[in-house]
């Protein structure tokens, strides 16, 4: 294992983690923090923050950067929307981030479960904002319409990497399709804040990153997150490099100069990391 740079150190407190983990277990909920082995789990759980992963912990896709298990998922749990809302209330979340395993096995890609969960949160936690980090739902506009109609404050869908690496890194997804999802959602409801993210360290060049930012911005996207790819295991897509904090600062400056409304760019920035702060920063947009 290559030696980790100094900036990839995180804090971990077992008691704090146990407390949030027990709540999730009680309510039969999954978090992407745990399933994706997120490096920020210790920090976020200590702050009583987590990102709910609805529609089960088993994914129908096999993206090579991702730690989530691939397989045959179970049908959606009808109690899950209310359980998420109850967990959000117990954690006292001001902003709830919902993500999912990609459910190509479901006709609506899980859109209805997203909508039900957003509605349950609205009912149980009035005033709480919601961010849906969705799959591409195979660019099924009927499915996307269901999510849009639930009107989360932020609609997030990650492009993950530059155009040139899509086939190798996320073989069952696609660059144009992900951009189309972002474009469609923004056009359908311009009051939605749209958000996306990509990783660096997969072998992309700065020129490719520059074009990626242009392509994302052309969809009308408001918020961009950029973080370091961290290889979950030796079996996953190989790490090409550790970008430095200075590199991330440069990417942030570039993205802001192009016109993104908000950019989170740091080695440990993730789609939902400090999502509330991001939303606060863009509050004039909603």
């Amino acid at each position, binding site marked *: 294992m290559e030696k980790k740079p100094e900036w990839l150190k995180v*804090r971990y407190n077992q008691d704090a983690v146990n407390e949030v983990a027990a709540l999730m277990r009680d309510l039969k909920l999954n978090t992407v923090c745990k399933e994706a082995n997120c490096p920020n789990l210790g920090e976020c759980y200590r702050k009583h923050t987590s990102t709910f992963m609805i529609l089960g912990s088993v994914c129908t896709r096999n993206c090579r950067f991702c730690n989530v298990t691939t397989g045959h998922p179970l049908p959606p749990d009808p109690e899950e929307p209310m359980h998420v809302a109850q967990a959000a209330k117990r954690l006292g979340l001001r902003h709830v981030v919902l993500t999912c395993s990609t459910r190509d096995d479901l006709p609506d890609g899980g859109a209805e479960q997203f909508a039900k969960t957003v509605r349950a949160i609205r009912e149980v936690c009035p005033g709480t904002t919601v961010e849906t980090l969705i799959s591409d739902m195979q660019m099924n506009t009927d499915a996307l319409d269901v999510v849009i109609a639930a009107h989360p404050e932020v609609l997030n869908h990650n492009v993950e990497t530059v155009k040139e690496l899509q086939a190798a890194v996320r073989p069952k997804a696609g660059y144009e399709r992900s951009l189309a999802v972002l474009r469609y959602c923004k056009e359908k409801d311009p009051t939605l804040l749209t958000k996306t993210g990509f990783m660096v360290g997969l072998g992309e060049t700065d020129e490719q990153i520059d074009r990626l930012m242009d392509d994302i911005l052309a969809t009308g996207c408001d918020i961009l997150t950029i973080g370091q790819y*961290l290889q979950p295991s030796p079996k996953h897509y190989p790490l090409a490099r550790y970008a430095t904090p200075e590199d991330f600062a440069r990417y942030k400056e570039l993205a802001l100069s192009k016109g993104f409304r908000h950019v989170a760019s740091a080695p440990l920035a993730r789609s939902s990391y400090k999502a509330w702060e991001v939303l606060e920063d863009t509050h004039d947009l909603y």
Partner: protein
Amino acid sequence: MEKELTMPKLRPEMKDGVLCAWLKEEGDMVTAGEPLFEIETDKVVNQIEATESGVLKKQLFEEGDTVDVEAPVAILETK
């Protein structure tokens, strides 16, 4: 009172971890929440915080050792 601090299970499939650095020496005072030692995983280096305050009485492993999940790593003398 002596209290054992154990190797945390940082991810579901983790069976052991490499203790890559001690951040406190034997005899040092440790406050709950202070980082005590570091474990390297595939993704990052985790600084493991003490969950109680006390004096670090004994380091049970050396830097570079592989430690089983839930095995005692340190003994803390607490009040």
